[in-house]
């Protein structure tokens, strides 16, 4: 069992922590260097957390648990106009990032109003590439319960909806969190942070359920092992300027390389046991730029597990 952690500390000697994580059999998912500060998103075997904590203390850094590490979440707003930005959409996305998630803010082309509210085909495809979608809706209950579900009723990923009014549940959504709605100010009060924490809690719960579902028919290869193999065999991944050249999903990943150029090479990544990547995963073009999306086949589909 790997535990998701976030290390924040100085640049000096942080490579020692990275080496320790590798030695313990963990994974480094993201490294952000901001001048003299470094933030590492890591996965560490649960039994060895104390060793990592000890090392972090020695380097005068801090370790915090970041439950959303290894997931990509779509934060969907009806549009990118000032009615939704920067509060609350960006604030929520930022809070999810602080909890380890990779977030993408998506502003819909026709998400506003009642009559025209709908998803385009490419928006639907793009949102379905994520692990979970969080919809940021407005202040009126009748809009949220009677109309806006049209935006997410056809999506395959779990949906969490936020809005202004208090309400127990909304149709087609995994959960609804009230008390946000349209805002013209940031989240400053303790009660407001409690709402953000409840969003993180609800997302973790939804993702845990998805993980449990995956365990019933396990993936043919661990996504993190696959990530390591790709990084080693295709060094161009490391040359990407994106902060996360490989963005992890629960059952695959997004690789930020051009599909046409790298499709064959990715398919032919070899495992020491014999099979190639195309035996254990499906490679397809992403709706985001020219990137690749990789979905790992389950054990029952691939016929074996590595």
């Amino acid at each position, binding site marked *: 069992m790997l535990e998701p952690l976030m290390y924040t500390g100085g640049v000096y000697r942080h490579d020692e922590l990275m080496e320790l994580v590798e030695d313990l059999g963990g994974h480094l998912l993201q490294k952000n260097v901001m001048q003299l500060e470094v933030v590492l998103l890591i996965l560490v075997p649960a039994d060895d957390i104390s060793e990592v904590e000890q090392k972090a203390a020695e380097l005068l850094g801090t370790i915090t648990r970041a439950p959303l590490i290894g997931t990509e979440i779509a934060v969907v707003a009806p549009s990118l*106009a000032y009615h939704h930005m920067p509060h609350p959409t960006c604030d929520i996305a930022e809070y999810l990032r602080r909890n380890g998630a990779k977030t993408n803010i998506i502003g819909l082309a026709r998400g506003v109003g009642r009559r025209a509210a709908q998803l385009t085909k490419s928006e639907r495809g793009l949102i379905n590439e994520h692990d979970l979608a969080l919809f940021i809706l407005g202040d009126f209950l009748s809009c949220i319960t009677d109309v806006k579900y049209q935006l997410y009723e056809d999506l395959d990923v779990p949906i969490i909806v936020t809005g202004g009014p208090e309400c127990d549940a909304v149709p087609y959504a995994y959960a609804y969190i009230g008390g946000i709605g349209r805002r013209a100010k940031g989240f400053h009060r303790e009660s407001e942070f409690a709402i953000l924490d409840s969003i993180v809690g609800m997302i973790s719960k939804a993702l845990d359920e998805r993980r449990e579902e995956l365990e019933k028919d396990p993936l043919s290869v661990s996504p993190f092992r696959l990530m390591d193999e790709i990084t080693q065999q295709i060094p161009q991944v490391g040359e990407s300027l994106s902060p996360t050249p490989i963005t992890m999903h629960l059952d695959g990943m997004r690789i930020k390389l051009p599909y046409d150029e790298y499709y064959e090479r990715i398919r032919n990544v070899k495992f020491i046991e014999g099979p190639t990547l195309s035996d254990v995963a499906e490679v397809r073009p992403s709706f985001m730029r020219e990137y690749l999306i990789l979905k790992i086949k389950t054990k029952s589909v691939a016929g074996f597990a590595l």
Partner: protein
Amino acid sequence: MIDSEKVAVESPDKQGARLIEELTSDILSDLDVAHSLYNIRIFIDPDEPVFILYGKLAISLPDIKISDVATMTHTDDGLKLDIKNERYVNDLLDKLVERYGKANILQLDRYTVLVATDDDIPDETIYEPTTELKRKVIDSIRRVAPEGYRIIKHDITDDYVLFIASEEPIKQEWINQGRRLLKEAGL
């Protein structure tokens, strides 16, 4: 009495009304119009759908003329303007460029401008605080109104603003309702 804090929202959805009230106060104070727009009343019904806002406008500052900003003296080099109030220099220069062309204007330093003319410049208005205020008020109201409500009818004078927005073509009854709000407020 100017009570900028008071925003009265009427809606069949009570929770929504409370949230819109909070949002309106935040937006008005954020955009610096809280003291210029007061006695605000909003009617919003998402089922219709309609958004009606009425508010009184505070009296703004008088228009700024060239004589308020600079003193003019005729010299051998042309008309010399000594700037008294630097805040409106840009507006003054814009006006001069519009009238005389860029080639005939020379700004010697921060406080001195030379214009190649022998005549007096007519004392024109260079900055209208009322127009600026109206622009800011309409901008803030558009931020309060739901984004999908793109069909807008508004009426803005020096005393009040009436703003009706909807997703559907504006109905006569909504305009009547807006007029009634104005009447109730004595306008």
